[in-house]
């Protein structure tokens, strides 16, 4: 079930984000995720930023341990899991925070993508330079250090065939009213245990994010009253955002 990987490179991406390149590739579709196991610690979900890499930010105890890995250290990976973004012409990619990591593979595969990035400060705009080589990039920062000042919503409207969003729950909930449900896709994050759809831990309005998602179409997301509102914690109890 798990592949034993070694870290071949730990790349600093700015804003406290690091990419861990592994000695294995996980052939996957853009938006799919893997479970990364650190023995003695835990196992958590991460989007594939490259087919052989995950990108994380030090947000808590597990990501701290993860980002302490050095070249040559071991990590065990299973997956990829879940549904992916459609890969078509005319995608508008909208990312915030470390959620941006889920969009890089998509930007590489979709024809003529446009990219909108949001963050507190310029440093948070993960992979900005790489995105710029793939299509037109617009950015918004809360502190105005780069691009438009304010939230990513300030970059709208933006013409496109379809919209692919990944970022914090609150950001996605905020974007929802601005995007056409039939032509938009959202990648969600929930606490995961099994990642194979049996335990029910990762539910958002009854959809299991690990298996029914993490990418959902806008029509489904339209009905998700829990988006931006609550997630299940480790016991299963609701935690309100």
């Amino acid at each position, binding site marked *: 079930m798990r592949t034993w990987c070694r870290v071949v490179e730990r790349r600093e991406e700015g804003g406290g984000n690091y990419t861990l390149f592994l000695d294995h590739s996980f052939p996957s579709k853009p938006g799919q995720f893997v479970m990364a196991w650190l*023995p003695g610690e835990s196992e958590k979900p991460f989007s594939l930023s490259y087919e052989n890499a995950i990108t994380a930010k030090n947000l808590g105890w597990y990501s701290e341990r993860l980002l302490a890995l050095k070249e040559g250290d071991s990590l065990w990976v299973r997956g990829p899991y879940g549904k992916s973004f459609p890969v078509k012409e005319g995608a508008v990619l909208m990312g915030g925070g470390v959620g941006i990591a889920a969009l890089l593979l998509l930007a590489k595969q979709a024809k003529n993508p446009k990219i909108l990035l949001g963050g507190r400060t310029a440093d948070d705009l993960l992979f900005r330079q790489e995105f710029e080589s793939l299509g037109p990039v617009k950015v918004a920062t809360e502190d105005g250090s780069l691009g438009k000042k304010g939230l990513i919503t300030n970059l709208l409207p933006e013409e496109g065939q379809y919209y692919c969003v990944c970022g914090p729950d609150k950001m996605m909930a905020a974007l929802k009213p601005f995007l056409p449900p039939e032509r938009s896709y959202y990648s969600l994050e929930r606490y995961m245990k099994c990642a194979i759809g*049996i335990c029910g831990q990762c539910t958002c309005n009854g959809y299991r994010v690990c298996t029914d998602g993490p990418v959902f179409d806008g029509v489904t997301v339209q009905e998700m009253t829990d988006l931006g509102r609550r997630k299940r914690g480790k016991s299963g109890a609701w935690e309100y955002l």
Partner: protein
Amino acid sequence: MLLNLDPPIVNGSGILSFPDIFELLDQKGATIGGYITKSISPTERLGNENPVVTQEDTPGAPLLNSLALPSQSPEEWVAELKETRLPRAKLIVSVNGVDPKEVSRIIRMVEPYADGYELNLSCPNLAPGEEESVADLVGQNPTASAQVVRAAREATEKPVVAKLSPGTDYVEVGRACVEAGADYLGCGNTLGPGLAIDIHQRSPVLAGLTGGLSGPAIKPINLKMVYDVFGALGVPIIAYGGIMTWEDAVEYLLAGACVLGLGTFFAERTVEDIVRDTRNFWQGVQDYLKGEPLESLVGSAHAMRTTAASPSPQQKS
């Protein structure tokens, strides 16, 4: 009292687990007649740290899980169940059968929202001051199991299922449960537990060290359990253990089950997959029955085995 599930298909407790998932599946038209909640504990439990599941890559390898019964508090469950609307299916509340007093307290709390109960007897049988990891299971002890069932029986008139474990003296435990008032026996919980070791890490994989086995690998064991329990006690049985196809379902019905529990079945299946595959699953059973009532199938593998020259009981088309 019977559960009257239509169709007689349920999810295993701890699988899918939560009311919002049940609501979605019921609304989307999954062919599932009853949903069983995650087993509720007396107080909130976080369960084990990840990884909580592991499985070899060989196809058909057993799934090992060490979730270790995470649970919201009963109060939080009540808040959720109050909001739960299942237009078509029944709701069965699973309760960890740790302590008779707590079992009856939990049942009284959720009683307005439940159509029935399942008592998970595969819980640590805690002696006072005893650590959970060293305790035997309640389900290994007929007397302790009967006490839990009796507490439930006194707290509700709704159907009560006592869920047994393979690897126990399940006929004797089951007998004690039936005498204490259980309407159904659940056969059975996960097998084992078993162990998986990562050969590169050189240590056990699961954070909880060992995990219960589920999936097709355990079917022969749980099928024998149903066969034995039906043969000895003749009570209504909910079958669990590696039911993946309608053929598996028919095997369990022939052994003596009247309700089919799906667990590992749901792995890697989306909502749409579940809607389609549970329909096909039930259709497969219907096609097999060719109009024969399901009840006539239940336990019929216990009849004398037919001899060579006599034709097979089912006419082939």
